[in-house]
């Protein structure tokens, strides 16, 4: 029961942040880029709900706009790396042999690198921008999907219904996407929700390090980084973006936990 409630809380948080991001231009009380240099680092007040940052901009408005970047990057990267990872995992598991060995060595190499370090290196080469951050995180992200899907494919590809599909005369492509994929999707969906949380943290980390958004753009990681310089004088500048990251990541993890329980065959029938 308790777990179930957490799932609902997770959904509520994600939906609230999602709506906030979507409606940011209409519901944010101030322009997130507006400079009010006379009102630097003002703590939360009735006019500015979460206070003002070093440039005097409204933190609440910036958080709403920041949610756009965090959620877009999170969902888009997971969608891209999921699509690539699932396809490669299907091919690797289904064909086996040399193809499988080759692809799995590539996966091993990518997994052997410390993830964030590789992302930093990639962004350093490509140049800092949100787009390049997404490319770097996709390059890192697909391997976990490939690993997962490949294992699942190996476990079901000798089932009789897959053999029956092979002896129906249909193409390998169709067997992979019509017969195998739907039967291995449940753990992949769970993995995807956890990945969204991971990607949001990674994007924040990269932005914190100055490798993400261009300076001044509201992103949770970048806001955290700006607050770092005034941490002792005005903790609210870093506390609120930090809280936002924590809440969203926690929410996606709750959803992931819930989905995992749901797809677990042992609890399926209750």
């Amino acid at each position, binding site marked *: 029961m308790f777990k179930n409630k957490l799932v609902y809380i997770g959904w509520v948080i994600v939906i609230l942040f999602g709506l906030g991001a979507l409606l940011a231009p209409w519901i944010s009380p101030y322009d997130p880029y507006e400079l009010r240099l006379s009102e630097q680092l003002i703590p939360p007040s009735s006019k500015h709900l979460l206070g003002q940052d070093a440039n005097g901009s409204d933190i609440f408005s910036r958080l709403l706009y920041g949610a756009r970047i965090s959620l877009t990057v999170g969902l888009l990267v997971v969608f891209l790396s999921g699509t690539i990872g699932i396809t490669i995992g299907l091919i690797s598991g289904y064909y086996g042999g040399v193809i499988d060995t080759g692809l799995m060595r590539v996966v091993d190499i990518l997994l052997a690198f410390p993830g964030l370090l590789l992302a930093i290196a990639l962004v350093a080469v490509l140049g800092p921008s949100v787009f390049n951050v997404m490319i770097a995180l996709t390059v890192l992200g697909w391997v976990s999907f490939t690993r997962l899907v490949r294992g699942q494919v190996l476990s079901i590809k000798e*089932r*009789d*219904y897959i*053999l*029956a*599909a*092979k*002896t*129906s*005369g*249909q*193409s390998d492509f*169709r067997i992979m996407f*019509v*017969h195998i994929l*739907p*039967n291995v999707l449940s753990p992949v969906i769970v993995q995807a929700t956890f990945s969204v949380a991971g990607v949001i943290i990674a994007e924040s980390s990269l932005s914190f390090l100055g490798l993400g958004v261009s300076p001044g753009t509201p992103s949770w990681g970048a806001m955290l980084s700006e607050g770092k310089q005034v941490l002792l004088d005005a903790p609210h500048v870093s506390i609120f973006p930090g809280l936002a990251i924590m809440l969203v990541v926690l929410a996606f993890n709750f959803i992931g936990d819930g989905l995992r329980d749901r797809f677990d065959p042992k609890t399926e029938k209750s």
Partner: protein
Amino acid sequence: MDGPNIIEIKNVKKYFPITGGVLKTEKARINVLNGVDLSITEGEITGLAGESGCGKSTLAKILMKLLAPSSGEILFDGKPFSDIRGKGKRLFYENVQMIFQDPYSSLNPRLKVKDIIGEMLRIRNVPGAEERSRVRKILYDIKLDKNSVNKYPHEFSGGQRQRIAIARALIVNPRLLIADEPVSALDLSTQDKILELLEELKHKYNLTILFISHDLNLMADRCNRVAVMYLGRIVEIVPGRHLMKSGTHPYVKALLNSIPVSDPSKRDNRKKLITGEVPDPENLPGGCYFNPRCPEAILRCRIEQPPMVPLNEKGHYVSCHLRAPA
């Protein structure tokens, strides 16, 4: 019953290598099929019997082109099996179809019945309207309610699922149906119904059937010919109606003796039951594969592998030194 042979299997062997080490060198071989000769005659029900692990299902998979034989030759309509590839394979699967032992794993749990059966036509570019009418017709043939089309496999019993599997195989009008233990996962009352259905469909669809089973009683009743397999070789081929009385190979006799008799007064306590285990397929015994367990084995059985020889004019063949006519 002397139609043309739809399939001829000639000295087919299949082994699976066990590899090890960094270089994946072959360390040992699991010899599953050790020279199988069998032909499947058009219009007949050919039975293939044997214990678990004797290679029945491997042979079925080879005949379905799911596995390639290690050596030997298979002819389909007189043409070599190895020539069937690429587009020819789809055509081949319109001629040969298979039903599996376990109806709980042979249907994709995420597809509806209409898609499981209809897919066979859809991938052959049959128009939607024709597909629907043919699916309706075959559901009638397998005696399944026509409202079943929108249900998922888990909504059906084992027997109903096996009917769906049969429908999927027959909707392309194949000539040969390979039935790999089609009823051994079902309870007795359902077994009979499925067997009767198969027999009825055999006439309706002009089928040739390769019926794989370990139940000799059942095969004696329904098969034109029964081939009994031991350790990847066929030891005896006998017309089904003669199986119980004239089955003569020591292994076949032991199998027949092990069938339980329900009437206590007819039980024969002197019957010899088979002893020992099936030899390890990694290290096959020399000579006749059955000699380590055979109560009648003589020296020759340990040295020389017996050839398959005809016993009479009725199509009874046996591979045994002791039974071969002098």
